């Protein structure tokens, strides 16, 4: 009998429990785990920032932007960072509104991890920031995976902003999603 070729197993992710993720602060000692996704063009394709070209560039970004950020967390499995999620409050009279952003190493795509992380953040952020009324996500029209994350997390799709952001030199349309502090999903704890 002819032997059928066996698909190679990805041994690293095979035994991991994807239902048990945790969020924590990122620090410089996480730099190698951080570089796994931050230096990957496939991951940063829809990000506002370019892939980090070196560890030095990544460390500077971590020190200048990530560490001082008002709300930035590593998405971890077994306390090892595999991605990141952040919430950025708008300025001045718009401070009751904030924008969520997230990124995940490509090896971990398609497993519901980002959705889980977004749900955790949604519940926590309205508790941390009681003045917050609206959490929004703006997703590139071509980034279907990310749109699905917000839909599954209970965000409401409100429309498309045409030529809303310039990304890597091109004007891109963005799908806008929102979750309000009064929406039921904002109170669900995972």
């Amino acid at each position, binding site marked *: 009998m002819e032997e059928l070729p066996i698909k190679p197993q990805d041994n690293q992710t095979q035994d991991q429990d994807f239902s048990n993720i945790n969020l924590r602060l990122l620090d410089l000692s996480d730099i190698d785990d951080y570089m796994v996704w931050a230096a990957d063009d496939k991951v940063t394709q829809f990000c506002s920032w370019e892939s980090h070209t070196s560890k030095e560039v990544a460390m500077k970004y971590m020190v200048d932007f990530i560490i001082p950020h008002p709300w930035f967390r590593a998405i971890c499995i077994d306390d090892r960072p595999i991605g990141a999620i952040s919430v950025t409050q708008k300025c001045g*009279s718009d401070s*009751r509104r904030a924008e969520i952003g997230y990124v995940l190493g490509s090896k971990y795509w398609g497993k519901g991890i980002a959705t889980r992380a977004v749900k955790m953040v949604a519940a926590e952020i309205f508790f941390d920031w009681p003045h917050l009324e*609206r959490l929004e996500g703006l997703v590139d029209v071509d980034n279907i995976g990310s749109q699905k994350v917000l839909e599954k997390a209970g965000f409401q799709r409100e429309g498309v902003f*045409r030529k809303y952001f310039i990304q890597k030199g091109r*004007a891109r349309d963005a799908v*806008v999603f929102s979750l309000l502090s009064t929406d039921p999903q904002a109170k669900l704890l995972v």
Partner: protein
Amino acid sequence: MDPTRISLRPFKLSDAGDFFSWAKDERVTHYLRWNPIPSREEALKHIKEVAIPHPWRRSICSDDHSIGYVSIRPESGSERHLARIGYALGSEYWNQGIMTVAIKMAISSVFKELDYVVRVEALVEEENKGSQRVLEKVGFQKEGFLRKYAFNKGKIRDMSIYSFLSGDKIL
């Protein structure tokens, strides 16, 4: 009044009297971020401190008298391709097509004068039907209804968002 007699120009200090006559009316400022102007002195102060230094604010004029304004403000830094439009008109000039003409003129000027602007957006409250009609007549496209999007005058408000891009056609 014939809408073709409308012109747009920057504000001057000498507009204070005309500006006061429409800006003191609560119906005119109701949906704006600012409150009715209480005095001629405040009117002059507003022109000097807000209208004249603004990156792009124009008085809507009839026979060179200010009867309203249109403002287009680009965001700062890397977001300056985005701009927000705001406008108001003295109430006796409502429902005559004047605001539509003024915004058409503003849109066609702003893309030439601020060539980095790609997208002009307008936020309008659901009940402000007159303002929505104006935008539709100019050729803005309604993109969505944004829940609890803007905080103004002590309340968080739902907003409809409209946009006009540099490549769009003025109707």
